């Protein structure tokens, strides 16, 4: 089966600045990919090219086998911009009826869509009176129109509270199960972790890492931290046994080691028996892994 989205060696320049440098990726039907990166890393630029909103300078992009931005491609792609904006004088229902008509769907579905994002009670209020989270939900509702084969979501959960975020990812799971490919960008790594199949890290316009979270974790090979709490008055003997340990303020000793050294180190600690009161193993956090990749070229 042909992938829903294929990008190969995509290059985009804004004057002197290279916003994207030979970025390649493919996204198959039903897969969810998260695009991570600092502000200015090229996430939004990449998305706008996929949507056909801006031209590109080199490489190839195909969306459902067609040129991005062609009428046939636009009919199959839905987009949620960062900070979704709508005309303040229209009500939520009127805005959705308009979008439904533009996609050639029955405008009567507007209330169904609003109910799916929990906005049925505000349907007849003007969007000018909505909160940011409510506008974001209108934005989300319009991406559900028809059966898009590709969803492009730019920071989709900004402005949503934690409960709405979970509902939002549940919606995405449902769409992905029906075969929609999803490309989303996010700053919030912890929510992306469980809810996407693949993570792509952009840095300075380059795709610096790509894979599942487990892949990235293994490839980064960041050290594991162990926090040891000595039994009362036994701190000196622990320090003697582990001269490399760093004392942290609250009487804890911090040790770090490579993944492969974790179990031997644990064995050494447990051999000390009664000298140790407690022990915590802290794997590298998502933020650590993300910084590791996104800083690789000196950002």
């Amino acid at each position: 089966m042909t992938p829903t989205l294929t990008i190969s060696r995509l290059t985009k320049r804004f004057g002197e600045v290279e916003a994207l440098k030979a970025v390649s990726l493919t996204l198959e039907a039903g897969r969810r990919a998260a695009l991570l990166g600092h502000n200015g890393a090229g996430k939004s630029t990449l998305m706008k090219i996929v949507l056909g909103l801006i031209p590109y300078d080199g490489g190839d992009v195909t969306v459902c086998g067609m040129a991005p931005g062609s009428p046939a491609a636009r009919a199959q792609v839905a987009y949620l911009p960062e900070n979704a904006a709508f005309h303040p004088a229209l009500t939520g229902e009127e805005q959705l009826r308009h979008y439904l008509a533009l996609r050639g769907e029955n405008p009567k579905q507007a209330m169904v869509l609003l109910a799916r994002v929990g906005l049925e009670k505000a349907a007849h209020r003007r969007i000018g009176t909505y909160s940011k989270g409510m506008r974001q939900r209108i934005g989300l509702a319009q991406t559900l129109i028809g059966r898009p084969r590709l969803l492009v979501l730019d920071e989709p959960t900004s402005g949503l509270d934690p409960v709405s975020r979970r509902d939002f990812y549940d919606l995405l799971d449902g769409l992905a199960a029906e075969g929609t490919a999803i490309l989303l960008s996010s700053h919030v790594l912890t929510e992306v972790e469980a809810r996407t199949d693949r993570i792509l890290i952009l840095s300075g316009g380059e795709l610096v890492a790509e894979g599942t979270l487990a892949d990235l974790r293994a490839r980064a090979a960041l050290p594991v931290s162990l926090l040891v709490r000595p039994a009362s008055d036994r701190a000196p003997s622990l320090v003697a046994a582990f001269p490399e340990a760093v004392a942290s303020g609250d009487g804890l000793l911090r040790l770090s080691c490579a993944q492969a050294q974790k179990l031997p180190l644990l064995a050494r600690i447990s051999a000390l028996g009664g000298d140790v009161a407690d022990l915590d193993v802290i794997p590298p956090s998502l933020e650590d892994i993300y910084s590791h990749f996104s800083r690789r070229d000196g950002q």
Partner: protein
Amino acid sequence: MNRILATAISEFRIAFRNRWVSIATGMMVLFALVLAAAGAAPTGDVGVNRLSVTVASLTSLAVYLVPLLALLMSFDAVAGEVERGTLPLLLTYPVSRLQILLGKLLAHLVILALAVTLGYGAAALVAVWSDAEAIRGLGSLWRLIWSSVLLGATFLGAGYALSALARRPSGAAGFAIALWLVAVVLYDLALLALIVSDGGGAFTTQALPVALLANPADAFRVFNLSAAEAVAAAGGIGGAAGAIPLWQSAASLFVWPLAAIALAVTAFRKVTP
């Protein structure tokens, strides 16, 4: 077609909520009634029915007011979408830029048609009420209405083009006012100055008709005055109307909206969100 219609419905709603419908209609009715009252005097002198005289006065009013209303409604069309941030999402929909502009045009034309029909209609009612003979002037009233809509279409298209070129509503508003001043006010003043200095020479006989046809507002005035054979009732530049065949001013009226819309679409296509 459905996409154009859907865009038009949304735009009409927005214009209605932003009070553009009531502002446009109110302005037209108010000015038309003032003219109808003031235009009562010359009837006896000219020897035509009262409505025809009113139409001649309304023509002079429309030359100023219709372009102004059209530019006020259109300057925000593209620049406003850019500023609100609604344009990128709209352009990812399977709708062409031409369809978007045609949808807006349709809504704005309906509003304009409503405003001029009610405005001129009010003036016509006053005329017919005081002079039963005036009913014979209904043909020229009808001609004034549809030619006003065409004149409006030209300036709506020009407004969209300026809106797309400026990309910011404040800049677009400035451009729109400048265009109105040049096309409607300064152009005629310049022609008058040239006629006076020329003293009935080559400019007045050769270049003036072309200059009048080249400006949609003048073409509109010339068309309505010569069609109504009310040239005598109009002064100034309108007096030249007799020299220009009716088909030429009509052609100018029909060609200008197409040119303006083509310009608007070209400018809109250059906007990258």
